[in-house]
């Protein structure tokens, strides 16, 4: 692909909005895909696109039109990706805990190369839960709220909260067991 012309960069420096839009059209998808491939979250990738381009606009006056815009963009992008790795780190730990508890695979769990497939499956299974159960489950396991908090928020007893969580975990376990028996989650799925 042809790099963006220095003419457009010069216009951007002057604060030209349509030059800015051209640059966005030209590079936003690349930035989105790169961020997505490392952060595995569309939401985070979208946030990065927004954050990086706002930075580009705010620093437009210092933009160097003679050096590679690609490298410049990459540097800003990399910094944002770093930041989001940190931000998503807790969420990823929590998801790991859920998977570890419900997968039934213990000894080599953390070395299995199909981790992403399990994450995707987890998302899918959570979506399949009845609405109330899903709500309770997410509040407890992802938002790390206490039984008491959840019972107050949803106006249900703590016993009911516990019941939903037990059922949700049982559901996940049985689904992951089924997949294992069928051999559906395995590294070889990705080959070819």
């Amino acid at each position, binding site marked *: *692909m042809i790099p963006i012309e220095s003419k457009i960069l010069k216009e951007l420096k002057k604060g030209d*909005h*349509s030059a800015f*839009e051209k640059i*966005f059209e030209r590079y*936003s*998808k*690349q930035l*989105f*895909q*790169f961020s997505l*491939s*490392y952060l*595995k979250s569309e939401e985070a990738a*979208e946030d990065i*696109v*927004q954050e990086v*381009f*706002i930075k580009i*606009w*705010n620093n437009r006056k210092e933009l160097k039109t003679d050096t590679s815009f*690609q*490298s410049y963009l*990459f540097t800003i*992008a*990399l910094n944002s*990706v*770093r930041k989001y*790795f*940190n931000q998503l*780190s807790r969420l*990823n730990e929590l998801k*790991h805990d859920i998977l570890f508890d419900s997968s039934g695979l213990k000894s080599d*769990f*953390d*070395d*299995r*190369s*199909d*981790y*992403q*497939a399990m994450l995707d499956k987890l998302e899918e299974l959570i979506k399949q839960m009845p609405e109330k159960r899903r709500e309770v489950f997410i509040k407890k396991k992802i938002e790390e709220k206490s039984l008491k908090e959840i019972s107050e928020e949803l106006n249900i007893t703590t016993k009911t909260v516990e019941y939903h969580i037990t059922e949700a975990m049982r559901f996940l376990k049985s689904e992951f067991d089924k997949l294992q028996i069928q051999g559906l989650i395995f*590294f070889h799925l*990705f080959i070819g």
Partner: protein
Amino acid sequence: MENKINYKTLLDFSKGRYSYNEYLDIKNWFTNVRNDVEVEEQLFNQWQEFSDSTNTKSLHSIFEKIQYNILLEEKKNEKGKSIWQYYRQVAAILIPLIAISASLYFFTKPSQTTAQAWSEINVPEGARIEFLLPDSTSGWLNSGAKLKYNAEFTRHRKVELTGEAFFKVKHRENSDFTVGVNDMDIKVLGTQFNVSAYANETVTEVVLKEGKVEIEGKTATFNQVLHPGEKISYNHEKNSLNKLAVDANISSAWTNGYLVIDDEPLAQAAKKLERWYGVEIAIQDEVLKNFRFKATFQEETLDEVLRYIAITTPISYKIETRDHNSSGVLKKKQVVLKLKQ
């Protein structure tokens, strides 16, 4: 933790083939401040491979968010030096004037002047006129348009247009009909089509509803045949020609009293409103010009239209009091659009 990532690990991870431990390695690399240049170079290579990402969903909504945020930021920084307070005071005094001047819109009447054999129809700003030519060709002229024609139509029927018009050309054996605008000639047989060629616009548009027309550039050398449902846009500043499929009914909806804004940027929509209502619209914030919106109005007053825009977009409006020019004539009504605070 020992850093053991290599290009393969990066590649596998980015493609979704990784274990939790590999995720931890990658995360550690990214979150570690002192990381090695080698991995960064490998990442840069990967980054460049993404430069042809085209199969992604449109990110335009993010662009709109960005513009919105930029704008809010700029507004915040500008606070204090606003001239709006001044205007507010002036408005309080001059509001009664607006009421009087509203009736002056239609002050100018369409004039018909005859210069030799040429006749001319002039449409005042804010009005739309239905016309009938001597050969039974009929149509509509939109606000501010001007149509010149020769009263004695012969073998070659020729009219000249500035502004927007919708033509229903009467088919006649052995007689062609040409609409000339500043940058092109549109040759037709019996057909229905819409032309928009305002003098202050860089783009001329022709939309064909029925039949067939042939378009020939005056300054640039292009020759295009248009089929029903096609639109041709010619930018005579950039000398660029664009042809695409459209709903021809939308472009001629104005002849039925509809003002249609079809997912257009505000800058373009404002021009339509200016002509439709014979007002001048100033867009205070540059970024607003790219806000797109969609609406159809019928017989709404300017005020109702502006109110609708203000409800559905982050835009607020203000109708300024009307000034007199040096010769004492009231200037057009001024509308100012700006970002909602």
